[in-house]
């Protein structure tokens, strides 16, 4: 934060939880909170844009639109007013992926609300990862779980889509279910893994491994020194 100040030399006006502050331009929203003395615990996880803990809501001065962002990754702007959302309550299905027998049908057992999507697209518009969430929900409903996996791989589970869904579902949980079912039930078992596991079980490498373990540290170092 102090570096940001050194870099940019300018301050911007922001409003945090309804209170006005001046913070260095070039700070992220989280850094702006630290700069103004906030202790942030709920709302920070990775600080690297992948854990989804820092979902936030903001408006810009003079603009009626309500926007959302990941606070650890979003730079403050002059006239920004924001609050963190901490956690959005969700309902998640209780299932064992290995026990699924007809995952495409069972989607409607675990998440019947999935079928009630009203196509409003609010989820897609809000997603900080740029995921076409609405499309993913429909693909899930149609049983195209591969497409769901391709569309939603970057989902950080921030729950912002839930906060906007007029059908009150949790699209990211539905996508998680579809991805898991696709991975565990649809994709073929990888041949290269099977071959290696069979070899390990057959003890193919045991003799050489035992030999290595029988060496002194000095000998072992020498053996391993060069790439083979």
């Amino acid at each position, binding site marked *: 934060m102090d570096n940001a100040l050194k870099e940019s030399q300018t301050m911007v006006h922001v409003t945090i939880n309804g209170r006005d502050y001046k913070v260095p331009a070039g700070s992220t929203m989280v850094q702006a909170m630290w700069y103004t003395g906030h202790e942030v615990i709920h709302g920070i996880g990775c600080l690297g*844009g992948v854990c989804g803990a820092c979902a936030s809501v903001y408006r810009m001065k003079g603009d009626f639109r309500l926007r959302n962002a990941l606070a650890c990754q979003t730079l403050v702007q002059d006239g920004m007013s924001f609050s963190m959302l901490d956690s959005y309550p969700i309902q998640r299905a209780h299932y064992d992926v290995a026990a699924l027998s007809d995952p495409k049908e069972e989607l409607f057992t675990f998440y019947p609300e999935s079928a009630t999507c009203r196509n409003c697209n609010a989820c897609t518009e809000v997603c900080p990862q740029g995921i076409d969430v609405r499309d993913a929900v429909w693909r899930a409903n149609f049983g195209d779980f591969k497409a769901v996996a391709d569309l939603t791989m970057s989902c950080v589970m921030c729950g912002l889509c839930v906060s906007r869904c007029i059908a009150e579902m949790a699209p990211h949980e539905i996508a998680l279910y579809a991805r898991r079912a696709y991975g565990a039930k649809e994709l073929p078992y990888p041949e290269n893994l099977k071959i290696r596991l069979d070899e390990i079980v057959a003890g193919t490498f045991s003799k050489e491994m035992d030999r290595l373990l029988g060496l002194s540290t000095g000998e072992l170092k020498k053996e391993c020194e060069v790439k083979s």
Partner: protein
Amino acid sequence: MSDLIEEFYARVPVMDETPAPSLSSEDRQKLLTHFYPDYRPEGKATLRVGPNAGTVVPEEIAALLESRSRLQGPRTLPENPDREVDILIIGGGGAGITAALHAVEQGADVLLATKLRVGDSNTVMAEGGIQSALGEGDSPVEHFRDTFRGGHGANDPTLLSILVQEGPRMVEWLISRGILFDRDPQGNLSLRKGGGTSRPRLISAKDYTGLELVRVLKEDVVNAPLEILEFSPAVELLQGPGGACAGAVLWDLDSRKHIFVKSRTTILATGGSGRLHIGGFATSNHFGATGDGLSMAYRLGAKLVHVDSFQYHPTGVIFPSEMAGMLITEAVRGAGARMYNTLGRRFVNELETRDVVASAIIRECAEGRGVPTPSGASGVYLDLASIDRDAGEGTVAKRFPNIVKLMTRHNVDPTKVPILVYPTLHYQNGGVQTDAQSRTAIPHLLVAGEASGGLHGTNRLMGNSLLELFVFGRRAGLEAAQEARERPPFSWKEVSIAHVDQFEKDLAREFKGGDRPIAPTLFPDYRRKDS
């Protein structure tokens, strides 16, 4: 801000693609001794108290270990514990979750306590992948050799042989949970190359490997029959009969009250310590990586190993400064990204081991060939555009979508301009010394994951850490369940925190009553001092 970035990138020199001269093993050694922070004398202290007295470690680690407790004296325990369980697992990252899932399967009664939310961890941040020797012409033996060489021969060979042989079986477990690793057109797991390895061996889920692992395993652990306490970090371990571990004291961050947990076995899975910013380095680690497990275990008398050894990942973002420390995965160099100094010259083979590449970057900057940033730091260019030139337009966007997304948010398009990088404090190579069953010198205290030490020697190879979480997380979970069944019953009356009093007495004696820091700190404090 964009003006600042434009100005910065206006100065990028013409890049000369001639590879850097290759290094002999003497050159490597010289480079490391002169520039790698582990080998430098500055900022070090010799431990005076505890099981590792006499070891030279970074000052920040000495402050962590030779510290006073957060529990103020006189220290007494309540009449009864707040919870009584078979197994207490401390830390909800990859190692803790894996241990929990395996322990619960054994029918154990498990409490998982963690600092933030389950999964807010270093695990979720992993980008590159997991090492698993699946290729033709590869084998667990080759994996062993590469890792032992990479770890400078300081690895515990027994732990390492377990890692490489049980690895593929844990990959199978992950797939059975529905984790989506990248596949080749034949449906095989795609294998990629990381630094310091002789064969392509990294399996990944684009550059979201950790996120994919955590999303899935977190769902399983919240659905499993166990209790989870979030926002409840452990601040001290408890001592039972015979000096064995008997549970822990947790600190509820919301109610600001202590929770006393009596357990038959305890697994520490608290991860690393990047947020201690050793040597002033920025870090790639999550917000809660403050080395808590090390300090708690040390006070109880557990021996640590290689705690003087850290991994400074060569390529952390250094400009724009608000991103400082953020990791650019090594896989980009595996894919052909190149590095240049301010003169536009390449200065090291980009596929050397991490410590060598990091040392070379530090050397360039120390000797005036670094690129200065507006805030007075310096770094080198990491150019991803060569990947697209070599492997075809769009490769970067396809293989590293997360990097493109994160950098673009800060107005830097990594497919067009180079990223400015400098080494970032990334991984704690050492930790609490453990055996093949994840046991420590303290009975009924097990340690798994980044908090443990010995496996990686003094330099971890990319992808081995994630593999460790699953191999040894599982072992810890199973061992804990067995120990919980077999440990003779003991009463709350036999439990104490006298070891903490004793440790503080030793501190007072050695430091002649001088003030010592308090640990674990739980979080770094980045608030402006005068705010």
